[in-house]
């Protein structure tokens, strides 16, 4: 009877497996599922149980990504990820004595600095003598030089 129950539990647990395929751009990204590295992308035919799982992706030159997936009871789940690249930005300000703050947490006072920015929009706040001097969104979409100039509203704009 006990053996039968064990067998039944085994059968149920095997039946409940979902085949997981993970494809990542860029190829070769490290895939960590629930804290355990399961290989480099792409990974095919990995078995998971239905339920909540955490996938972490790491690749050189890309922002690490964490994503929670509620895996449904299915035959197969194909997950495609596109990681965000990191760009090297040369930042330069024409004015002196300014304090720069990016995304509310990264601060510097140098007029020239090399930044490693994730692709996408970042919020740049500029302070002069501890007073907010400027507030604008900058977009990193390639390796480039960024020359800071104070935001000037267009004439006639509100």
């Amino acid at each position, binding site marked *: 009877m006990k053996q039968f129950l064990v067998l039944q539990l085994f059968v149920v647990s095997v039946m409940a497996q979902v085949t997981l395929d993970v494809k990542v751009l860029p190829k070769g990204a490290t895939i960590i599922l629930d804290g355990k590295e399961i290989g480099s992308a792409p990974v095919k035919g990995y078995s998971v149980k239905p339920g909540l799982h955490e996938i972490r992706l790491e690749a050189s030159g890309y*922002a690490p*990504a964490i994503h929670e*997936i509620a895996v449904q*009871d299915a035959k*197969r789940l*194909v997950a*495609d990820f596109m990681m*965000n690249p990191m760009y090297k930005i040369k930042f330069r300000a024409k004015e002196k004595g300014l304090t720069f703050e990016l995304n509310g947490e990264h601060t510097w006072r140098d007029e020239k600095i090399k930044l490693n920015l994730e692709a996408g929009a970042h919020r740049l706040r500029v302070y002069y003598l501890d007073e907010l001097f400027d507030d604008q969104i900058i977009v990193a979409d390639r390796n480039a030089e960024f020359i800071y100039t104070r935001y000037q509203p267009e004439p006639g704009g509100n």
Partner: protein
Amino acid sequence: MRIPHTSFLVFSAMFVLSGCGYMFAPKYSDPIYTQRPPLISLRYEYRDIHIYAPLQVVNTLPEAYQVYIYDKDNEVDALFAATYMPEEKIEVYLPQNTLSTDKNGTIFVISPQGRDMPEIKIKFTGVRYGDITLPVSKIIKTPAIVEGLVFRRYDDRMLGGIQLVAADSTGRTFYTKSRLDGDYRFELPNEYGYRNDIVVSAGVGSLFPVVKKDAQFNGKFNLEMDFPLGPSKEFVEQGNLYIVINNLTHFRIASSNGSFTPFLLAKNDIVAVTQVAGNRLYGLVEIFWSDENAEMISGWVREQDVIYAGNYFMSPQDDLELAKQ
């Protein structure tokens, strides 16, 4: 001395003025993220549930089959509905996890389209995915059913093992026997549901006088007919009971040979004898105009035409014994 090319000089100047200017610029220590989630696409590939409902079609051909699947808790909104042609296999494909896995939690309904073909409901236990083969469903036209009870009129005791015969006007006959609880049931072919020429006889082959009734369906397919057998309690109390042993036995108004015979008695008719004169017995016979309406008529029979019945029709143990005779 060779003078460098102008474009080389311009390039060098731009290099010094721009890129080279960052050679000694500090590098911010941490990468700066947007906290933007990665682009992701999830595609599920589901298994399916395959249900096969085999059919056995008996002497009929429905125009089509309407098939429904219901959850047992909601027989209004079908999980699945489709029409199948007679030549098609009844197979249903459903996505994974669409059926209840409770025991007998799902109902498969096959509704043959055509006259007098009843709907078939099959309860079954669903699966998450995989194959289900349902039991074979017999597609048959609604039978004409005659059912009821056979009991002893004397004390309403149920009679088991009593032979019943249903015969039509062409002589085609159907047989059944009552069960121990007195129930009997005829399942006649569908066409009898539209006929009125069926006569059901109960007590054939027993010591009880045979009782006959007309089964008039008139387009109905279920008739209930009970058969009280044997004499009434009132009749039994009239005298000693004798059973007529031959058909066409004379029941005369006087004891003398040649006296008037108002009617003839049949085998197994019962006479409650009150007087004896030589080899002539005087008594009563009970004529039933209906189950409840009877009349007692007096007359004479010859002793040689009857046999003493004792308490056959009253004793508690006589039912099965009688039926076997």
